[in-house]
């Protein structure tokens, strides 16, 4: 008996439009807010913030421009650990 083959064709233009929709940015911003809260609680010595950006899709970043934050991150992994707060629903 011949195997049944199902073909799926991805609409690349549609996917690009989807990834730039407001609801995607809102969803990412909500998660970034949780990461921001966890990072700020983890190390109150630095000021963390959210940055909105766009590549080929909506991008939301959490970071800090404070002097010495990279060395602190190297020593503690505070921001990296805070990423877990953005997971889940």
């Amino acid at each position, binding site marked *: 008996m011949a195997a049944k083959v199902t073909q799926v064709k991805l609409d690349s233009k549609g996917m690009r439009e989807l990834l730039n929709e407001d609801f995607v940015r809102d969803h990412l911003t909500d998660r970034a807010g949780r990461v921001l809260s966890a990072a700020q609680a983890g190390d109150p010595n630095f000021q963390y913030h959210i940055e909105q950006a766009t590549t080929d899709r909506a991008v939301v970043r959490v970071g800090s421009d404070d002097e010495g934050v*990279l060395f602190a991150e190297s020593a503690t992994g505070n921001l990296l650990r805070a*990423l877990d707060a953005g997971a889940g629903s």
Partner: protein
Amino acid sequence: MSSWPVVVFPDVELWACQYLQAELPSRSEPYAADVYVGNVVPSPRAGRMVVVRRDGGPRLDHTRDLARLTVRVWGSSEQEATDLARLVAALLWAAPNGDPVIRVDQPTGPTPVADDSRQPLRLQTFDLIVRGTDSP
């Protein structure tokens, strides 16, 4: 009684240290010799050091874990720190064989960091997806 197998994940920090401790001495690059590898900075400090730390990462499903690793590399010069960091990255990227590492990604490449010790330091981060094992 559980209807699912009990799956335990490996200690990825320990695995990475043991893997790099085994691989670095077999390399011919001069900066791969006499490298301290561990999960804490030794005292006294070494001229060449690789320090691995797990910084979270979620369990993906019943059998796979995503471990975020911060890997700090120090050298006795800026160039040596960069070269050793590049070699460490190459070794980690070559690791996936399913036992236990399935996949490696590197969100952050070798990044110079001003260390209080003034010893040249490079910071890198890796995401390792690993497979768990059945625990009887």
